[in-house]
């Protein structure tokens, strides 16, 4: 059955031969790529939640971020 999904491409410049090869990720590379993507998604989600929590707290206190920094010195 033909592949329906194209994997991301990688480039390799081998200085021993000065050959440049462009190819799809192999299995190991693709597994790491997907793991990295998942980790980034989790990090982005955590960062977005932290920003939202901060904004909600400031709103509850009735302060802007600059006003809070002024108070904290």
């Amino acid at each position, binding site marked *: 059955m033909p592949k329906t999904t194209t994997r991301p491409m990688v480039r390799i410049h081998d200085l021993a031969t000065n050959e440049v090869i462009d190819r799809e990720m192999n299995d190991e590379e693709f597994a790491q790529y997907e793991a*990295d993507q998942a980790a980034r998604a989790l990090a982005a989600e955590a960062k977005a939640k932290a920003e939202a929590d901060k904004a909600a707290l400031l709103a509850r206190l009735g302060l802007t971020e600059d006003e809070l920094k002024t108070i904290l010195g």
Partner: protein
Amino acid sequence: MAAGQGFKTFANGEVLSAADVNGYLMQGVLVFADATARTAAITSPQEGQTTYLKDTDVIQVYSGSAWVTKSGALPTQTGNAGKYLTTDGTDASWGTVSAGGMTLLSTTTLSGTSTTISSISQSYKSLYFIIHSVNAASNYIIQCLPNNSSTLASAGGYDTSSAAGYAGQAIRISGVNNTLLSSSTQNAYACRIDNYASTTSLKPISHYGMGASGVYVNFAGCFRSTTEITSLVFNLDGTTFTGGTVLLYGVS
């Protein structure tokens, strides 16, 4: 009469003798195939006689006791292209220029989700690379992973978006958390990795530069591995290169 008699004004009608020819006229540069041919032809050289030897391309003058290559004469240039002229105080000779400085190992155009420069020569003391004009499909952070390791770099330093360093990550070339915009190629960074070919020591690293966002970076740290670095992997932490160049140098 032997050679080397200096100068004589011949009068009209004067008989030209063998002695006159030998003494006054045989005073040009005499050309021989080699020193052996010269010795066979001139059995009793006179001081001041001048010869040219075709095998060594030198002019020599008889000092009264020996044939001497005159100072100022160049040694043969045949087969000595690229060499420099030196002297031991008596004779000039060609010396070989020693290698030094920076050698451009590769010029690599960045492409795909990662670009690897592999089979890096182990003959230098340090690696130095410049990465510039990077562009991507979406906003990005430029990273470098020696030997494709994403967990062995540690650095402390400064970028104008954050004064914190990074640890246990790839080398964050464009800064700790500084995201470059995909709308601009106005960026350039340099990175130096010392001791990269060592199999016993860690590798000091430093990198600096700036992107269009105006955030400049200046980091120093270490690649915490005793394995020699044979490859460098460049990626954008999740997005795809649409442009950019890496110039990799070996530093002697």
